[in-house]
Structure formats: structure tokens, C-alpha cells
């Protein structure tokens, strides 16, 4: 357990996307402690065990959607930084999610943008 490492949780309902992210962000493992959860329920289980500094979640997922998940995360741990990844153009849904997230990123987003976003949030949270 490295206390200085920031903990980042990635949530998506697409396993291939999670695997790709995991591989891509492996270079960041020295500074971030990353976990990848398949869906909102798995994310909540991981979060309850050990809280995270940053949660990056997809918007549309079966069952509980990203907005709901981030709302629950914020209730448990108000200091958590939240990123919503969205490919969905529905403004009403986004508006509902906005109070619970710090940044909304459009899907698809390029890896450097995602890394930079997380970096900034981690620094702000520190």
C-alpha cells in the first residue's frame, strides 16, 4: 500500500473498453493506483471497500447509469472528484449528472486528454 498514490476508479459496462484503458494507462501505474469496474454495482462494491480520489464513469450503462452512480459516490465521499464520459447527446440527462461531476468528457476522447483531466483533478483534490 502506497499512501502517496492517488486512487482512480474507471467504470464502464464494456469489458473491451476497460481492458484497453487498463493497457493504455499502465504507464501511469507508478503514480496512480487504478481499478477497473464493470458496471455501477461492481464500482460501488469497490468504492465501499476503499474510497477513491477520482471516479471516471461512462454515462449510459444498464441498470444504474453514470449520473446515479456518481451521485451515490458523492453521498458516501463528498470530496471525490468525478468524471463523466458521455457519448450521449441528451442534454437533460447531462444536466442531471452535472451537480455530481467535475468534468464531462465526450466519447470518444483521446488518451492524453483523459490523462490530463485526471492529473488536474488529482492536483486540485490534493
Amino acid at each position, binding site marked *: 500500500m502506497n499512501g502517496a498514490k492517488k486512487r482512480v476508479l474507471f467504470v464502464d459496462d464494456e469489458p473491451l473498453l476497460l481492458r484497453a484503458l487498463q493497457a493504455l494507462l499502465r504507464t501511469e501505474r507508478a503514480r496512480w493506483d487504478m481499478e477497473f469496474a464493470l458496471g455501477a454495482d461492481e464500482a460501488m462494491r469497490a468504492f465501499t471497500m476503499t474510497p477513491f480520489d477520482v471516479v471516471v464513469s461512462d454515462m449510459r450503462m444498464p441498470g444504474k447509469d453514470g449520473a446515479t452512480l456518481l451521485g451515490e459516490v458523492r453521498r458516501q465521499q463528498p470530496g471525490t472528484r468525478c468524471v463523466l464520459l458521455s*457519448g450521449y447527446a441528451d442534454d437533460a440527462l447531462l444536466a442531471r449528472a452535472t451537480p455530481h461531476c467535475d468534468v464531462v468528457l465526450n466519447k*470518444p476522447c483521446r488518451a492524453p486528454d483523459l490523462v490530463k483531466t485526471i492529473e488536474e483533478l488529482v492536483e486540485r483534490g490534493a
Partner: protein
Amino acid sequence: MTNLHQELQKRIAKANGIGAMVITLLVMASAWGDWAMMATIGVINALVIAANMFVTFVLLSRLSHRNAEITRAVINLSTGVLIAHITHWPLACFLFMPYTALVFDPVARKTTLYTVLAVCVVYSLGSYLDGVPLMTPFVFTVLTLFCYETSSSRHAVIRVMLAEAESGRDALNRAYHSLQTETAARERAELELAQHHKLEAVGRLAAGIAHEINTPVQFVADSVSFIDDGNRRLLALVDRQSRIVAEATSALDDDERTRGRATSLRVMLDEARATADLDYLRDELPLASERVHEGVERVTHIMHSVRQFAHPDKKESAPVDLNESVRTALTIAAAEYRLVADVETELAELPAVLCHAGEVNQVLLNLVVNAAHAIEEKQKQTGKRGTIRVRTRVGSDHVAIEVHDTGVGIPEHLQGRIFEAFFTTKPVGQGTGQSLAVSRAVIEKHDGRLTFESKVGEGTTFVIRLPLRRAAA
């Protein structure tokens, strides 16, 4: 209606005929015993009846109604006076005068009145000259005027009733026609609404598909980034290993016994590199992942355009960058024109215009697709590529978007019809499914105008004008 009319006319003619006959018989009876007189009266009356018939059936169709009536009045008057003179004045007066007054058809009321008065005066004068007491013509005149007034008033009443019935019938006809027009308009509106809903549903579907594609696109891009990074690191590893091998083999060179081993190791390494085509991989792998990124970028752009275009969830007007709308429509319609036309854009700096983006985009798409089809049609004849030129410009009070094509043009006889509902020259399944009538309605709903100019063989330019006064500040 006409049958009944003819039936009634016949009845009047019959009554008149019977009346004339009864009068004739009565006058003849008054001369009972004087057989020569009776014969004379019979002949005169027969002639008068024939003259009347002639006037009614022949002259009436040639002369004006008024002149025919006057002619008849003169004939009857002369006969009446003649018969009165040769028989008895009171008898002739009683029989002829009221009868004459009844038979008049008061179409020209004034003429008829004068004629009746003339008849009265002539009879009175005639009887006076023949020495008949004045009481007789006086009573006859009163009776005649009474007959005349009653009959002409009845006519007037019937005429008024007829006019009322006719105006009622006209009102009913007008109501029926406006009902028909309204029904047709409603049917058209309903069909157009259905069409609109269909387009909306397609837009929603497209936006949903665009969203679904984003996830695979995301992990394809992420995976390629990873592969790219992995390649770089593997190549760096290969390079380091090569240097290590070089160092190791050069150490073997120092000793004469191992020098041959070193040479064969170098040959093996070169062979292994050649087999793997290492230099090519070093050059091409980064380019390959660059291509994937470029492809992903394009897919992203197309999907973004689809989502932008459909705007399935935006119902109200909002400030819109129409240049962005043009670019979006050109991206979406690329499949329609890429093979047949080049696109030129000339986009002026535009203020945001308040409009319903989804609807205006649909119109733009429609115009671009039509332009592509017009060019495709011409290409079949000439084999040459065409040009679609889209220009935007700002006027004093409006923003204009011009969609010009170098296609076949619209034949003059169709130019007046292209904005008619459901007018199309395209087979089913081609085009965007939106008629130009709907396009125009959409633009007019925004207080704008959709116009065009076209020349056969040269091309067509459609111009959308949207008012600037509604532009957002």
C-alpha cells in the same frame, strides 16, 4: 328542378289557352243567331290565338322579352277593340281587359304597367266614342288594374323566393367547396406531419447508433494508442539488445579462436532482422497507427455530425451557427455526392441565427442531396464531374445560404410545380423523403424564404434566407 319548371310553364300555357278558348266561345255565344257575326268572331279569335302563339314560341326567342310583350299587347288590343266595336263594348271589355292583364308577364315591370294603362285608355276611349256609358270603361279599368297588380305582385313574391333559394344554394356550394379545400389541406398536413415524425424517428435512431459506435471507437483508439506505445518500447528494446549483441560479439573478436563464432553470430542477427523486416516495421508501424487515429478521427467526426444533425431532443429554437449546419449537412450527404461532385464552400462570418437547428439542417440536407442528384443525372449524359457550391452571406436584415449545383437544371414547365405538396420526379426511396414543399414550409415557419433559379443544362441555385432580426444578440 328544370323538369318541374317546364311542367309549371306548360300548365300556365294550358290555362291561357283554355282561357282564350272560353272567351272566344263566350263572345261567339253573345252573337247567337247572327251566324255571319259568329263566324267572323271565330276567325278573328283563331287568328289572335295563332298570333299569340307565334309571339310566345317564335318572337320571344328572337326579340327581347320587352318587345315581344309589347307586340303581343298591340295585337290583342287591336283585336279587342275590333271585336268590341262589332259586338258589344261591355262584353269585350269584361272578357279581354282582365284577361290581358293576367296574361302579361311582368318581367319589365314598368313597360308592362304602361302597356296595361295603354290598354285601359284605348278601351275607354273606344267605348266612349261608340257611345257606351262612362261607368263601363271605369269599372273595367279598375278591374284590370286590380288583376294586373295582383298578378305582378305574385310574380315579384315568387322572384324573391327564387332569389333567396338561389343565394342559399350558392352559400351551400361555397361551404361545400371550402369544406373540400379544408379537408384536402388537413389530409396534406396530416401526411406531412407523419413524414415529419418519420424523419424525427430516423434522426433519433441515427443519434442512438452514433452513441453506440462511440464505445467501440473509444476502445479501438485506446488500444491503438497502447499498441503504438508498446511498439516504440519494443523497438527501443530491440535497439538496446542489438547494441548488447554488438558489444558481446566485438568482445569475441579479440580472441582468434572465437572470431569465427562472432562473425556467424552477426550473420545470424542480420538474417533474423531481415526476416522480421525490422527497418520496414520501424518506418511503417507508426504510420499505421497514425492511419488508425486518422480513421477514428473521421468516424468521430461523422458520428458527431450525425448527432449534431439529428438534434432529436431539441424542440425549441436556439441560436445556431449556420456555417456549422452547412458543414454538418455536407458531411452527412458525402455518400450522395462524393462520386459525382466536388464541393466548394464559401462561408462568410455569420452571427448566430435563432432557429430550430434540426429542421433547418434537414432542409439543408435536402438541398445538398437534390444538388447531388441533379449532378449525377447530368454526369450520366456528359460523364463529367460537377460542382456543388455552398455559400453563406449576411445581408442587411437576413442571412442567406446558397446551394448551387452544376446539374441538369429544372425544366421550365416544372419550375412552377416543385413546391407543390408531394411533387417529385424521383423514384420511391431516393432523396431524403422531405418534399421541397415541406422545406419551404419549414423555412417560412422561421419567417424566412426559400427561392431558386434554374437553367436547363446549366444548373440550379437554391437560396435560403432567414431573418436576422430574430438573431440572438
